[in-house]
Every structure is written in structure tokens, then in C-alpha cells.
């Protein structure tokens, strides 16, 4: 099996991740619930992972890192916890439904929304972003990279726009966290939402968010916190303010091991490898008659994703053929990115997405190129 659906989840994890999860099963009690050895073991592992993530994203301190189940939960906390009726929010057609749907719910409650369009290569315009700012604009919410085209949004420019107008800057780093250097302070990011199971190479069910110190986010959930039991309200101090209930300690143990592995390896090396595999694939398929590729490949500021269609073939059929005949795993369909597909005119056909990880090989890429070439023959 050749796994090329890393934008959905990374299948191959470093061995250290599996070992950390298995070790956690033998040692972990419930973090923050008492001072017994198992409870403290869990608290230590979770705190250690919190610290690592703070270092990894250049956060001011570990308390600004909150654990969630995934990016979707982080984005729901951020979007529903920051915006109210009367606020105006700017976002883009590149977004995943985990951004769009919470924003639509806010819109139903009176939040105004501007969704920036894109050009034929799926790129947004910063002039349009600037022009969209109104008196009541509260925030720019955008993805770091489209999960369909792989195009990146320049966070430096978007962050500068946000700062210039005193707006909050909320970033969905689902496709880039772990595979790219992200410095929340340098980029002026107020909230960074990430998942643990994609580029960060941790277990599914792990994720989190960075929240800038001083920024208050209304919690989505309240409940057990391990502290201040007789307070009728959930604690307001970070990170407890945005963490209710038992955390996924076993998963977080794996995530901590994954972040260590990434920091040892270096995001530059990981990124270089992923981009090199992506380029090899792109160069191998781009001249095949009948192939249409989506996105901007003139730059390397992109995620390691190549989405394509073969002639007018249904993307689901092509992906199934790749799976059944070649053992190549890709993702067809709409990728939870309705506006991006609409902008590219691929609502009916969908697209076949190949997404690469550090653990893919050149041989696998060459096999995938051959498979696409064969399927494109008339």
C-alpha cells in the first residue's frame, strides 16, 4: 500500500509516538485529579507536551497552549468564543468547513461575514483583504494552507493587515503545523488552531490551540477542571479556562513524543523532503495529456499537496481505481472545502488529492506517476 492521503491524516508515525502511547497505558491516571503517582505521571506528561508545543510555536508560555480533540474543536472554540452579533469577520474561500460552518452559525446570530474570493490558481488578493476591512471588523480568520490546492496564505501579510487595523488574527494551521515553522509572536497570531494527527504526526484525537496572553475566549465547554470545585463557574485562568473534562492523556503522550521527534529532525528538513516529493510528483504528471492540476505551483510556499483530475473522469472513480489496481491511497471528492471547489469549478467532478509526508519515498512517487499516466490513456 502506498499512502498518499497525509493531508487527511498521517498514517506512518515515528516509532517513538507509538511507544509513548503504549507506555502511557501502563502509567497514566487522570491528570490534575489528585496527587497520586498515576495522576501526577499523567499531569507531567501533559505539562511536558504543553511546554514542547509552546516552544515549537514560539508561544510566550506553556499556559497559552490548550489541548483539544482536533482543529475542528479548536476552531469552534475560537470562532464561537470570540465573535458576537454586530462583529464583522473576514475569511476566504480556501477555508475548510471547520472554519466555514462555525462562521455560518455566527452569521445566523448576527455576525457579518466577508468571504474573500480567489483567482484561477486559488490565490487570494491582499488588496481585497485590505479593502474588506470595515469599522466593525473584528478579525481575519484564515487557513495557513488550502487542504485542496495546497496553496499557502502568506501569514506575514495577513498578520500585518490584521495588526494595521487592530483586528484579531485567527489561523487554521491544520495542514501546516508540524511541517512548517510557525512563530505565533513574529506573525502576530492571536489564535492558532492545530490538529495533532496530521503534520504533527501524533495520534488522532489530539489537537490544540495557542491563545495570545490577555485574549479572553468564551469557553465552548465547561465542567470538570480538577481545581476550584465549589466555584459555580468554570475557571477563567488559562489553560484550564478552555479545557473541560478529562484530556486525552494517552494521545497527548504520543503527541509529545511526536513533537520531540519533529524538533530533533527539524521542520526545515521535514518541509524540504515533503516539498521535494511533491515537486517530483507534480513534474511527473503535469505534462500527461488529459491531466488538470489545481493550485499555484510557481512557488514553494505551499503544502505538499497535488490535487488533480484526469479528463472528465469522476474523481471518486479515479481514486478507487488507484486504490484497487495500484494500492495507492488518495482522497477524492470535496475535501470539506465547498467554496474552494466552487471557485475551481470542480463541484461536480471533485478532485483526486495526493498529499505527501516525510515518510513517502521517491519510488512511491514514481509508482503514482506511472499509475496516473496509465489511467490517463484513452
Amino acid at each position, binding site marked *: 500500500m502506498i499512502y498518499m492521503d497525509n493531508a487527511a491524516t498521517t498514517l506512518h508515525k515515528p516509532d517513538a509516538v507509538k511507544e509513548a502511547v503504549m507506555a502511557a497505558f501502563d502509567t497514566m491516571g487522570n491528570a490534575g485529579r*489528585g*496527587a497520586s503517582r498515576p495522576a501526577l505521571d499523567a499531569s507531567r506528561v501533559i*505539562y511536558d507536551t504543553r511546554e514542547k508545543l509552546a516552544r515549537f510555536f514560539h508561544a510566550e*508560555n506553556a499556559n497559552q497552549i490548550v489541548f483539544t480533540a482536533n482543529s475542528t474543536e479548536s476552531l469552534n472554540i475560537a470562532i464561537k468564543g470570540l465573535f458576537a452579533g454586530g462583529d464583522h469577520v473576514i475569511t476566504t474561500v480556501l477555508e475548510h468547513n471547520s472554519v466555514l460552518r462555525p462562521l455560518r452559525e455566527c452569521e445566523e446570530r448576527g455576525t457579518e461575514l466577508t468571504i474573500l474570493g480567489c483567482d484561477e490558481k486559488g490565490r487570494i488578493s491582499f488588496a481585497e483583504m485590505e479593502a474588506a476591512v470595515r469599522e466593525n471588523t473584528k478579525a481575519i480568520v484564515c487557513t495557513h494552507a488550502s487542504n485542496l490546492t495546497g496553496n499557502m496564505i502568506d501569514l506575514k501579510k495577513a498578520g500585518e493587515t490584521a495588526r494595521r487595523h487592530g483586528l484579531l488574527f485567527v489561523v487554521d494551521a491544520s495542514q501546516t503545523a508540524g511541517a512548517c515553522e510557525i512563530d505565533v509572536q513574529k506573525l502576530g497570531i492571536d489564535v492558532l488552531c492545530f490538529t495533532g494527527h496530521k503534520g504533527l504526526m501524533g495520534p488522532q484525537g489530539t489537537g490544540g490551540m495557542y491563545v495570545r496572553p490577555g485574549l479572553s475566549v468564551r469557553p465552548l465547554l465547561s465542567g470538570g477542571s*480538577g481545581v476550584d470545585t465549589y466555584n459555580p463557574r468554570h475557571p477563567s*485562568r488559562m489553560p*484550564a479556562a478552555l479545557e473541560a473534562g478529562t484530556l486525552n492523556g494517552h494521545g497527548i503522550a504520543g503527541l509529545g513524543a511526536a513533537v520531540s521527534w519533529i524538533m530533533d529532525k527539524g521542520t526545515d528538513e521535514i518541509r524540504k523532503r515533503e516539498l521535494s516529493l511533491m515537486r517530483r510528483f507534480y513534474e511527473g504528471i503535469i505534462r500527461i495529456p488529459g491531466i488538470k492540476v489545481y493550485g499555484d505551483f510557481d512557488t514553494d510556499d505551499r503544502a505538499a499537496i497535488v490535487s488533480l483530475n484526469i479528463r472528465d473522469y469522476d474523481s471518486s472513480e479515479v481514486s478507487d481505481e488507484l486504490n484497487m489496481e495500484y494500492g495507492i491511497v488518495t482522497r477524492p471528492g470535496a475535501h470539506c472545502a465547498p467554496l474552494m471547489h466552487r471557485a475551481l469549478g470542480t463541484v461536480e467532478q471533485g478532485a483526486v488529492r495526493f498529499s505527501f509526508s516525510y515518510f513517502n519515498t521517491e519510488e512511491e512517487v514514481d509508482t503514482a506517476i506511472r499509475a496516473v499516466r496509465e489511467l490517463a490513456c484513452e
Partner: protein
Amino acid sequence: MAMRKKERKLVVTFHTTADAMAMEKACREKDAPGRLIPVPREISAGCGLAWCAPLSCRETLIGLMEEQGIEREELHECMLR
């Protein structure tokens, strides 16, 4: 076996578990004495972790918390086992 004998000890409470864990980490790194205990009921009826250390370490621990930027809730002296 009977309960251990009580002694007067220093107890530092925190707003969050994360702060308590930061304290433990800092104390271990700096070789400062103490350990995490459940917050004694005479301090708070709520749950949580507290740092318990000999009274003589008061100034050392205050200095360490300030140096490491660890936010505490309160400093107490309690009779503990």
C-alpha cells in the same frame, strides 16, 4: 500502620494544574525541596494540587517562583503529615 505525625509545613497553592506542574518542574530542575500534594481541605474545599515543602524553604521557593515566572495563588502554613 498509624497516620504519620503532623508538622507545620509550607503549602503553595495555584490557580491551575498547569501552574502546579510548572512549579514541580522548576523545583526539580533547581533541586529545590518539596512535592505535589492534594490541596489540604483546611486551605480549600475545592480540588487541585499544591506544593508542600519545609517551612525553612519559604524564601528559596518565593525566589524561584519569581525567577521562573510561576504564578501562585497563595502561600500557607499548615499542620500536615
